[in-house]
């Protein structure tokens, strides 16, 4: 019996229930109610965000599959090759069980890529945790989550043999109790082999392949679309456990299946499992499906129809096979020792029909679940910009200490403790992995070089979501430029609080508009992404975190550029202005415990001109190193450039120094050294090309400063008017490189 209680337990509103009644013309069964509830959840239907997502630019000459059409967008890579990439969140499962939550997040995004027919080539991840420093219970809890998430990501990627080559991690109190775990994957495929998630051809066969169904993550999609409360922790479903071994078999089997040409449609069973995959394939194919739950491979026989429909067991796929071709398909399932079953057929009546033996348990028009899902435009709070920072209220901290504090602050410190747990080199394509601005990967089969990065400064977004989101795109593009790459496309993960809170909805809308603006400025399409709402810690919503991952193209291996200074005597330039904006800066946060002010502004046209100028110099072979200025400003960027790429695990990094003169800038030293104004990057050149480089820079009309020179002596010295600040790069390196490992050693 359907009661008001069961309706609200399913996260459906009364109006939504009315709509179900009118769509069906009768009362739904409990199974049908479950099906509607997950299909109309935020996670599957994007009911609170879809109208806003339409603002993204999604077209472009290179777009082969657009955002929203399939599991992941596909872009033309040239010469008949294409790439599929996407980012996806697993925030709530990771809050409950960090290791498995993160691991299954990685497993999910890998499936989204090979569902497109692409072989996944590499992974990245974007993570946020509460503060991990200190002896408090909270810090210990955040360390536990951090350690578990990193180990879980490593476990899945390392086992399946896909290298994890980049990402980003920030720590901030706003994520206490609600960490963010966003995983990215990119794969390569032949353009004529793009697989579709559609059930086409009446009479074709529907196969289930992969792990057996259990009670895992029951109604997880609905769960992810709610706030985490103490109660939700109590009524939680069985924790999903990832099985990378099974997924590896599934991956190889699916690519082999798709190569036969007998598969007309394929869809992973992710959120809302069997329900979502059948409803979506039918809806995309304009067809219906008729399946029998009795045939589903099960872990235990007492699973109810409701549970079978809504289970989120991992490592499962739905495959639609051309009638008559089943023998060749089954041979592949058997070779890879995968459980499989023939569940039913594609029908022409547009219905999602599910039987259990002879009994019909679900009979719903597929379009009712997808096309007819409710769409809302929530109320957005009105907004006024934060007050600009009053510098008078900021006491001048000693820059000599501040630089050490910033470099050892976990968000800025070296992330080796993390990436040494990730296999970065399996696959023989990793050219530059974690530790420089963007990761660079050689797609051997296509003979192309790609760069990838993900970025989001959530402090900026919390102070000004529109400007902050624009900056996320600008910064990602800047990282690509510093690696020698031209942006190709974007994928985004929108991590926000409860959309019913007007402030959260405003943030979501403004961030989408900011990303859209940013992507238009760089002339790149958004090829897909993910929305994660209801990210609430016990205290409040998380800082809005619209993570942007960009993929770029590098024309030739000679143009791959690293952030580290190369040779003593090389000349260092700053491209862009010296800047003066301290609002929302890490200096303010770390040294003054203040998260306030107006974050830096970005002029996207100017930003792009800066990138184009750098790329021009790179193309001419003039750039020896390039690094963007981000958190911690110029001083941090300079220090990091001195650190050299430390290669072997047992080998100290080669340290260089730099002698810098900022001239007669009339700025407070903290402002000059640590401001986070945008559109700035450092690069170094060989002295004999100086005139050539300067001619180019002058001709560009862009602001630039010749800052100084790289030195063999490992000292960073910065002259500002008559005052000189000097640090030992060895000591700076010590602060930066040992911080995370030291904090994590105190774990437990």
């Amino acid at each position, binding site marked *: 019996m359907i009661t008001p209680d069961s309706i609200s337990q399913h996260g459906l509103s009364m109006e939504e229930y009315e709509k179900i009644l009118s769509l069906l013309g009768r009362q739904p069964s409990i199974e049908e109610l479950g099906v509607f509830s997950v299909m109309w959840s935020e996670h599957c239907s994007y009911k609170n965000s879809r109208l806003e997502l339409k603002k993204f630019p999604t077209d472009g000459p290179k777009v082969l599959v657009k955002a929203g059409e399939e599991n992941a967008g596909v872009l033309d890579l040239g010469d008949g090759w294409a790439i599929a990439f996407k980012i996806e969140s697993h925030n709530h499962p990771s809050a409950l069980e960090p290791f498995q939550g993160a691991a299954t997040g990685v497993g999910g995004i890998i499936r989204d890529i090979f569902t497109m027919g692409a072989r996944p080539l590499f992974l990245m991840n974007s993570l946020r945790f509460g503060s991990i420093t200190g002896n408090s219970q909270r810090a210990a809890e955040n360390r536990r989550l951090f350690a578990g998430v990193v180990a879980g990501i490593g476990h899945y990627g390392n086992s399946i043999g896909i290298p994890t080559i980049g990402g980003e991690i920030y720590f901030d109190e706003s994520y206490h109790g609600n960490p963010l775990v966003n995983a990215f994957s990119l794969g390569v495929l032949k353009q004529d082999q793009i697989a579709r998630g559609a059930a086409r051809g009446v009479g074709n066969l529907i196969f289930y392949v992969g792990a057996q169904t259990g009670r895992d993550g029951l109604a997880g999609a609905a769960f992810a679309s709610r706030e985490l409360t103490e109660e939700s922790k109590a009524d939680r479903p069985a924790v999903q456990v990832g099985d990378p071994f099974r997924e*590896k078999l599934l991956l190889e089997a699916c690519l082999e299946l798709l190569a036969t040409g007998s598969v007309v449609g394929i869809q992973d069973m992710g959120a809302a499992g069997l329900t979502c995959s059948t409803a979506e394939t039918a809806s995309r194919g304009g067809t219906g499906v008729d399946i029998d739950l009795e045939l589903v491979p099960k872990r235990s026989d007492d699973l109810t129809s409701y549970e079978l429909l809504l289970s989120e067991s991992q490592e499962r796929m739905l495959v639609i096979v051309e009638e008559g071709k089943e023998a060749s398909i089954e041979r592949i399932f058997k070779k890879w020792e995968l459980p499989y079953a023939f569940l039913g057929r594609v029908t022409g009546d547009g219905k999602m029909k599910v039987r259990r033996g002879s009994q019909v348990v679900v009979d719903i028009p597929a379009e009712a679940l997808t096309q007819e899902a409710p769409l809302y435009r929530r109320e957005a709070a009105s907004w006024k910009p934060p007050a600009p920072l009053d510098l008078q209220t900021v006491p001048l901290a000693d820059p000599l200490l501040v630089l050490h504090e910033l470099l050892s602050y976990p968000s800025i410190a070296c992330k080796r403790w993390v990436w*040494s747990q990730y296999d970065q080199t399996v696959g*023989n394509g990793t050219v530059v992995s974690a530790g420089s601005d963007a990761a660079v990967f050689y797609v051997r089969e296509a003979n192309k070089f790609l760069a990838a990065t993900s970025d989001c400064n959530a402090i900026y977004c919390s102070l000004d979501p529109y400007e902050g989101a624009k900056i996320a795109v600008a910064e990602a593009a800047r990282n690509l430029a510093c690696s020698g790459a031209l942006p190709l496309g974007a994928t985004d993960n929108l991590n926000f609080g409860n959309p019913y809170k007007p402030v959260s909805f405003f943030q979501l809308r403004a961030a989408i508009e900011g990303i859209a603006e940013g992507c238009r400025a760089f002339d790149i399409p958004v090829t897909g992404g993910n929305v994660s709402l209801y990210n609430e810690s016990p205290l409040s919503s998380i800082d809005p975190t619209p993570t942007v991952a960009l993929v770029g193209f590098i024309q030739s291996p000679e143009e791959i550029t690293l952030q580290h200074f190369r040779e003593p005597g090389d000349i260092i330039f700053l491209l862009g202005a010296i800047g003066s904006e301290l609002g929302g800066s890490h200096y303010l946060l770390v040294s003054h415990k203040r998260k306030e002010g107006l974050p830096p502004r970005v002029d996207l046209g100017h930003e792009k001109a800066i990138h184009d100028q750098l790329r021009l110099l790179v193309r001419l072979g003039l750039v020896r190193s390039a690094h963007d200025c981000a958190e911690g400003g110029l001083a941090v960027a300079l220090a990091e450039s001195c650190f050299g790429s430390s290669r*072997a*695990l047992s080998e100290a990094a080669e340290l260089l120094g730099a002698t810098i003169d900022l001239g007669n800038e009339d700025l407070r030293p903290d402002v000059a050294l640590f401001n986070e104004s945008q559109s700035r990057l450092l690069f170094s050149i060989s002295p004999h090309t100086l005139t050539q480089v300067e001619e180019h820079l002058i001709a560009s009309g862009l602001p630039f400063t010749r800052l100084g020179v790289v030195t063999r002596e490992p000292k960073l010295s910065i002259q500002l008017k008559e005052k000189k600040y000097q640090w030992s790069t060895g000591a700076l390196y010590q602060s930066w490189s040992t911080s995370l490992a030291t904090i994590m050693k105190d774990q437990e």
Partner: protein
Amino acid sequence: MRAAVLQFPGSNGDYDALMALRSFPEISAQLIWHQESSLDTYDLILLPGGFSYGDYLRSGAIARFSPIMQAVRRAAEEGKWILGICNGFQILCEAGLLPGVLLRNRHLLFCAGEQIVRVETSNTPFTKTISPKSLLRLPIAHGEGCYFASKETLKELLTNDQVLLRYATAQGMTTSEANPNGSLENIAGICNKERNIFGLMPHPERAFEELLGSRDGRKIIESLLASLHGLIQ
């Protein structure tokens, strides 16, 4: 030289190994599925890295029962060269073709990065053309790479000059800081008494071109090629 790269369910270094071997014009290399039963036509049998059968019970424990392992055993007895990399090393130990075991890394974390290893002896076909004490830069990536053997076994290994590689610093010192996983005496790779089976934790197949950061992995294959010529002459 004819080389077979074995593929177990869960192997993931198979294509890397194939690619590395095929970068030598004088090698013809092929993938061999674990269900096959013959390896008669090959000079070198390579067990690649990965996580065969999920490495679930113990790394390599389930793979050693694969049908192809009978053929590996026969090939070993015939004196053919067998090279086990990472998970391949673990399988060879589990199968008893190499002494000892690989335990979970001492610090309990997976560890990946570039590692320096010191070559300890030239007295094997795998290291014939590498002078002892020379250093190689090779990637590592493993969670269970801590080599362990009983006192007696270790003594035998040392007496018979069976330790081929040790983890070392850039100066060639085998210090504990240079040891990424806590392995006994910094051992990174060993051979059997007959010297035709070599197991190592680092990944030479990921270090075969400048683009990937190191070419040092080639030296092992070059050694084998030189040894092969020695055999034929």
